[in-house]
């Protein structure tokens, strides 16, 4: 779909497993766990990054697992293997949204754990760490809808058309959400003393 439009945000990787994405999807649809291993290795970093930017580090492994289990269970019903990317992001965002709803019930506990998790990151560049923390908090301050569009567009580099297909909303809504998300984030960064 995106490739046909001249845009392929997730370039097909053949070298790692010797199979194209479509071939791997078909192997998985036939119930081949080894094909699924390659599919996991190929897409895990993007899925994980998206989940991390949307949900934080606390349950990252569990959320990643949930995404790939849903993928495995749903693959036999995926009629168009070329839509795999869109479908995968949809599942990822559904898992993230489910998690957000759960978190809303126990937010204070989660914030404590997230803080503890962030403290585990060790690096000598304190200014870099400080900015990372500012960005993390800025993303967290956005609504889930705005954060989703911003993460997919600005961090995952997905085109707006792809995001509209993933979320099932018009491109105009994507643009609008992106505009408001960036404005809110810019205000937050300026309040934190960041000069852009």
């Amino acid at each position, binding site marked *: 779909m995106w490739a046909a439009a001249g845009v392929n945000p997730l370039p097909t990787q053949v070298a790692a497993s010797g199979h194209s994405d479509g071939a791997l999807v078909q192997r998985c649809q036939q119930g081949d*766990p080894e094909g*699924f*291993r390659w599919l*996991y*290795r190929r897409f*895990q*970093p993007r899925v*994980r*990054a998206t989940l*991390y*930017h949307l949900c934080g*580090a606390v349950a*990252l*492994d569990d959320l*990643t*697992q949930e995404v*790939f*289990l849903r993928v*495995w269970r749903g693959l036999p019903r995926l009629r168009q293997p070329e839509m795999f990317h869109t479908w995968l992001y949809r599942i990822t965002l559904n898992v993230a949204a489910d998690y957000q709803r759960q978190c809303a019930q126990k937010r204070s506990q989660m914030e404590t754990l997230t803080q503890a*998790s*962030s403290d*585990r*990151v060790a690096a000598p560049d304190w200014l*870099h760490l400080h*900015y*990372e*923390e*500012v*960005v*993390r908090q800025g993303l967290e301050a956005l609504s889930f809808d705005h954060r989703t569009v*911003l993460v997919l567009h*600005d*961090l995952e580099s997905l085109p707006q058309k792809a995001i509209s297909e993933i979320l099932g909303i018009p491109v105009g809504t994507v643009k609008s959400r992106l505009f408001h998300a*960036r404005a809110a*984030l*810019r205000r937050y*960064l300026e309040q934190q003393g*960041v000069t*852009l």
Partner: protein
Amino acid sequence: MNRDDDPLVAFLRQYAPSVPPPSPGLEARILRAIRPQPRPVWQWVPPVVAVAGVSLWLGMASAHLGQPSSTQVAELEAWVEASWHGQEGLLP
């Protein structure tokens, strides 16, 4: 993209929080979860009991249906006895 947003996007990409690596056993855990597991023996018990119960009930019901009641047996015997001796009304 609005050019005014370029510095913001560049800043976000530069300082996006680093994604923590997955725990070493995550891939194995996921692959284990997708492999079909043999069904434990205890999970076979309820269906087996249910099938046996239904079979038993059907068997008893059919046996009961096939067996005439004592009244029917008596009537049949009376008819056989009467027709055997050629009682009136029973033979042309």
